[in-house]
């Protein structure tokens, strides 16, 4: 089986400081991987290197493209990479306003990716937008409202709809539940689980919330100081951590 994404030796330095160093792993279709670590551990740097937002100093990010099979996205041309970014890849930002157009209606936000890949029939675009709003549990009557009138949880769900409308195969998520109320988080997590299962999505989720990865991720990677200290099956890493840092991380979580 060909990995959907094969990350090989990704290294990113900021001058003398290490962003992330020599990170490698394979992600298979349908797998959800969590990346945890404290602030400054390099998890966001790694995510941005994988998603093509940052150019790594070394390493390859090989994606199994539909047309041509495995290709290194670091060395592919920018137009090709950006095309991936609006077709097979999706990126969910921590702050919905970074991933939405706040001056454009909910329907326009969802429709943008469709229009970007050539959809030119207003009725079809709007129909798909309404369908997706319903899938992320936003009332279809809100299709013409701007996201500025939405709650934080609704904005985040709208961002997810906007990203998934073109049927991507790989979703990058940066703290997708950060900044949301606990009750809103739960609803979002359940929604994401359902979408991942029903669409067969692969996902990479960066978070510092161990409860989020326990519920969403099949696999877990623990980072510290830019390096991977431990990785494996999520519940195995959380329940039977082998590395001292992971043991500290797990035992530091407040129990409720």
């Amino acid at each position, binding site marked *: 089986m060909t990995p959907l994404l094969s990350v090989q030796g990704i290294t990113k330095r900021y001058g003398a400081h290490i962003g992330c160093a020599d990170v490698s792993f394979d992600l298979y279709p349908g797998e959800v991987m969590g990346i945890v670590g404290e602030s400054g551990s390099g998890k966001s740097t790694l995510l941005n290197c994988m998603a093509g937002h940052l150019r790594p100093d070394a390493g390859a990010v090989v994606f199994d493209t539909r047309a041509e099979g495995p290709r290194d996205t670091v060395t592919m041309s*920018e*137009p090709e990479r*950006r095309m991936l970014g*609006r077709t097979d890849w999706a990126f969910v930002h921590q702050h919905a306003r970074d991933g939405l*157009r706040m*001056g*454009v*209606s909910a*329907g*326009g936000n969802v*429709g*943008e*990716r*469709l*229009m*970007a*890949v050539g959809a*030119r*029939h*207003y*009725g079809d*675009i*709007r129909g798909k937008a309404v369908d997706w709003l319903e899938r992320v549990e936003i009332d279809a009557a809100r*299709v*013409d409202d701007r996201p500025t009138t939405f709650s934080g949880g609704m904005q985040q769900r709208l961002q997810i709809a906007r990203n998934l409308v073109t049927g991507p195969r790989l979703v990058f998520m940066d703290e997708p539940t950060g900044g949301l109320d606990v009750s809103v988080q739960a609803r979002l997590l359940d929604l994401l689980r359902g979408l991942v299962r029903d669409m067969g999505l692969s996902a990479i989720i960066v978070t510092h919330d161990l409860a989020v990865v326990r519920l969403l991720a099949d696999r877990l990677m623990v980072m510290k100081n830019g390096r991977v200290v431990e990785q494996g099956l999520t519940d195995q890493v959380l329940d039977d951590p082998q590395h001292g840092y992971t043991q500290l991380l797990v035992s530091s979580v407040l129990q409720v």
Partner: protein
Amino acid sequence: MTQSPEYNFAYLDEQTKRMIRRAILKGLAIPGYQVPFASREMPMPYGWGTGGVQVSAAVLTPDDRFKVIDQGADDTTNAVSIRSFFERTAGVATTTKTQDATVIQTRHRIPEAPLGEGQILVYQVPIPEPLRFLEPRESETRKMHSLEEYGLMHVKLYEDISRHGHIATSYAYPVKVEGRYVMDPSPIPKFDNPKLGDCPAIQLFGAGREQRIYALPPYTQVVSLDFEDHPFEASKADHPCGLCGAEDSYLDEVITDDQGGRMFVCSDTDYCEARQAAGHRGKDAA
């Protein structure tokens, strides 16, 4: 009037004109592409046509006959002052007749009379970037142009339909040039959009404050963006001209009294006057 000896021909120095001509030639070579140029300070405020004036200055020759229109009219302040500016600094002949002019500087209209080969139409452009209102980052819009990522342009039209039930953008209606660059045609009414394409004249666009020049060479393919189920429509007020009776020209609505009286007249004054001189009369004609 003859040229005032204190000025170089057409105000600008020769090096500046060379620089602008290079930008124009590049623009003609890549239709619809916004070419940056070093816009000069002109003796008028930004927004009064500094871009158009610099382009006109760069293309004028002593043999040219120059016409200036502001929203179709030859007799408004802006048109009159730019016309006298070039009378004074270039000493060129001027005219109000579209057919007689070799260079026409315009703000927000394309003349009704068909243009011909050998004519140059110079547009004054306030904001050359059609993607500006949806994507404020210039670095990003340039990338979108270079990679032909124009989905966002349709988002604007989508928003129009979702809010108004139809594409309500009525001026500065975006077009795609030769299947490549999306271009802002300056704030002309969308009624004029069909005249942009397959036009025998050269069309030059100058944005002074924004320091951009772009161009359409003769007979360029220009298509107004739309949706399959909401096709582009060149619309105008559904009346004949009150003065000349023309049914096919773009009309201005003129309020005539405090009792709600109004009339519709051609925005192109030369076209209207020529028709009246030929004996055509509208219902409001004196």
